[in-house]
């Protein structure tokens, strides 16, 4: 031993402090197996919660179902029309010998838990590496981009939602094709930064992924522009974007696995 402690209490206190520090460093390693262990209690609680919610909001769900059924019928008609356009597009692409885009394989997952702290927007879903989910895989909600996988256990995965402050994605204004960087604000709003001062952007414009990074495919809907402002230094514009999905009410997601 290099050090000899005469005070036994000090020695034990230092040992405990050292053990706690080691434990803190080891937490990321222990995280995956721990979440996998807690998978079933979380699923049970989530199931009970969903059932109670369904009972409480029965009337609201009933009327919503009626409206949604009407919308589905309308969308079915539109889908038939768009199928025609897709086929026409494929024929024309073939004529122009464009590189065909790869179709994606999706895995549907159910949100079973959320980050208990207020400072991250992270959810845990019930699909993991056994279902082909890998780290950094893009995640979609039914209306648009939802986030990315940050951790993948054997049966569960952790997803960073797009309103997390650590989430960043290269994006385009769909109408004018101007680029910017979309980041989360923790609330139900996103910020699109680094837009040039002469950028053609209007309130209500759609914001989509640019496909510049390999992580997210091009053309995934992020949200719509709510307001436009000038950065503090006056060099760039920024716009506040309303995400296409509601990160707080997200219950099901689709993970792109291939």
């Amino acid at each position, binding site marked *: 031993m290099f050090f000899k402690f005469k005070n036994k209490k000090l020695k034990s206190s230092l040992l405990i402090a050292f053990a706690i520090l080691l434990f803190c460093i080891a937490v990321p390693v222990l*995280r995956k197996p721990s979440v996998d262990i807690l998978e079933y209690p979380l699923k049970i609680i989530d199931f009970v*919660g969903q059932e109670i919610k369904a009972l409480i909001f029965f009337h609201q769900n009933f009327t919503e179902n009626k409206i949604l059924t009407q919308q589905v019928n309308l969308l079915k008609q539109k889908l038939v029309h768009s199928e025609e356009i897709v086929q026409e597009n494929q024929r024309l692409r073939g004529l122009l010998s464009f590189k065909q885009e790869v179709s994606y394989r999706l895995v549907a997952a159910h949100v079973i838990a959320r980050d*208990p702290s207020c400072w991250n927007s*992270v959810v845990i879903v019930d699909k993991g590496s056994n279902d082909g989910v890998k780290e950094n895989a893009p995640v979609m909600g039914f209306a648009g981009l939802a986030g990315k996988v940050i951790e993948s256990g054997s049966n569960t995965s952790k997803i960073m939602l797009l309103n997390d402050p650590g989430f960043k994605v290269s994006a385009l204004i769909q109408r004018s094709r101007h680029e910017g960087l979309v980041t989360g*604000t923790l609330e139900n709003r996103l910020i699109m930064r680094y837009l040039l001062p002469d950028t053609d952007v209007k309130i209500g414009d759609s914001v989509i992924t640019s496909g510049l990074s390999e992580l997210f495919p091009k053309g995934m809907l992020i949200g719509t522009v709510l307001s436009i402002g000038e950065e503090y230094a006056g060099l760039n514009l920024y716009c506040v974007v309303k995400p296409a999905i509601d990160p*707080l009410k997200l219950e099901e997601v689709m993970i792109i696995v291939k």
Partner: protein
Amino acid sequence: MKPLRMLGFKLTRLALQIKPIRLIQTKPIRLSLILLGLAIIQSTVLNEFRIFYAVPDLLLIAAVMVSFFYSEKTAIIFACAAGFLKDIFSNSSFGLNTLLFTLICYAVSKISKKFIFETIPLRIAVVVSAFLLQNIAAQLILSFSGEALPLGVFGKICLFGAIYTACCTPLIIKLKI
């Protein structure tokens, strides 16, 4: 009716003699069950009751309460476990909550030996102070990793989180940890 009541009484007495029930009554098992229950509630059900994106920190309240009523050793172990349970659901690069919970509960444990916190408002005040301290420290550490929140958003969530936590503290006190 009387024989039925007698049967019920006998069955209850028999059930109380069964070992698992006695086992649950022991301190470590009871504390572990409370801890696990609170962690699961906080990461599932409680998210439906967010107010201005803020949620009460049930694990922190429980850890502070344990620091009041139990020995320093128990308080540190409980705080460490509570922080760990919070960490496994979040995405911090190391055991941020484990470290902060342990430090805060160690401090509370030391302070509660010198001062008496017998009334509920005083205990709520300690819990709120611990909540604010933990969040400010967490935010400072996050800002070093470039993930700092705008000050307005941080202040709003911190304020509502503190009020919400204060409102939930009497409920955890009623658990008689």
